[in-house]
C-alpha cells in the first residue's frame, strides 16, 4: 500500500470528521426513534 502524504492526510482527516458526523447522525436517529415510540405510547394510552 503506497500512500502519498496528501492521500494519507485526506484519508486520516476524513476518517476523524466522517466518523464523528456519522455518530452524531446515529444519535439523532436514535432520539427520533425514541420520540416516535413515546408518541405511540401517548396515543395508545386510554383517555380519562
Amino acid at each position, binding site marked *: *500500500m503506497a*500512500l502519498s502524504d496528501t492521500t*494519507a*492526510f485526506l484519508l*486520516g482527516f476524513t476518517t476523524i470528521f466522517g*466518523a464523528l458526523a456519522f455518530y452524531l447522525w446515529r*444519535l439523532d436517529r436514535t432520539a427520533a426513534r425514541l420520540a416516535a415510540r413515546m408518541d405511540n405510547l401517548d396515543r395508545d394510552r386510554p383517555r380519562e
Partner: protein
Amino acid sequence: MATTPLAGSADATSRLSRWAGDLRAPTLWAAVGAWLVLGALAWLVAPDWSGAEDVSAPLTRKLLFYHPASAWASFLAYFVVFVMSVAYLRERDLRRDAPARSAAEVGFLFNTIALVTGTVWGAVEWRSTGQAALATIYSDPKVLVVVVMWFVFAAYLLLRRMVDEPERRARLAAVFGILGFTCVPLSFLTSRVLASSLHPDVVGPGANADASLDASVGMIIGWSMIAYTLLFFALFLQRLRLARLEERLDEMEVA
C-alpha cells in the same frame, strides 16, 4: 451478590439523569469550542514540517494532534466501562449497565478513529522500514494490543444486540468490558517495555517521541487531550440520556 436498592435510590437515578441532561449542552459547546481552538493551534501555531529533512510525511504528521488523543479518549471510555462493569458485577444493579453501554459505544468510535488514522499515518511514516506498510503496522506490539481491544469491544456491542434478557446481557457485557479494559494498561506497557516496538510514546513517563517535537507541539498535544476528553463526555452524556429514556420506554411498554 444481589443487593436491595437503597431507599431513595430511584430519586438519585432521576437526579443523575437530570444532571446528565443539564450538563449535555454546555459540555457539547465546550467540546466544540475546544475543537475549534485545537484546529487553530494545529494549523496556525504548530511548526510547519514541510521543510524539515527528517520528516517524510509533513502533512500527515498533523495527525499527531488527533491520533494519540483519539486513543486517549477510547482508553478513558473503556475505563468508565470497567468501573461500571465491576460495579454491576458487585451490586447486580441494572442502573450500572446503561453508563457501561454508553461509554463502550463512544469508546469504540474513538478506538476505530485511532486505528484508522494510525494505519494511514503508519503507512506513510514507516514505509522506510523495508517491509510492506501494513505488515509493519500490524506487527507492532502496541498496535496489536489495540486491535485485540477493538475486537473485544466489537464483540461487546454485538453481544448486547444478541442477548434479550437484561440481567444476562448486563452480566456477559460486564465480563467482556472488564476483559477489554485489560488491553489499556497492556498497550501503555508494550511500547515502553518491548524494544521491538516502532510506536513512539508522546506522553507520560518513558515518552520516546523524536526530538523534532518541541514545547509548542507538547502544548498542542496536551490541548488535544482536553478537547477529546470534553468531546467524550459530551457524546457519553448524550448517549446515556438516550439509553435511560430507552429503558424507561421499555418499562412503560411492558406495563
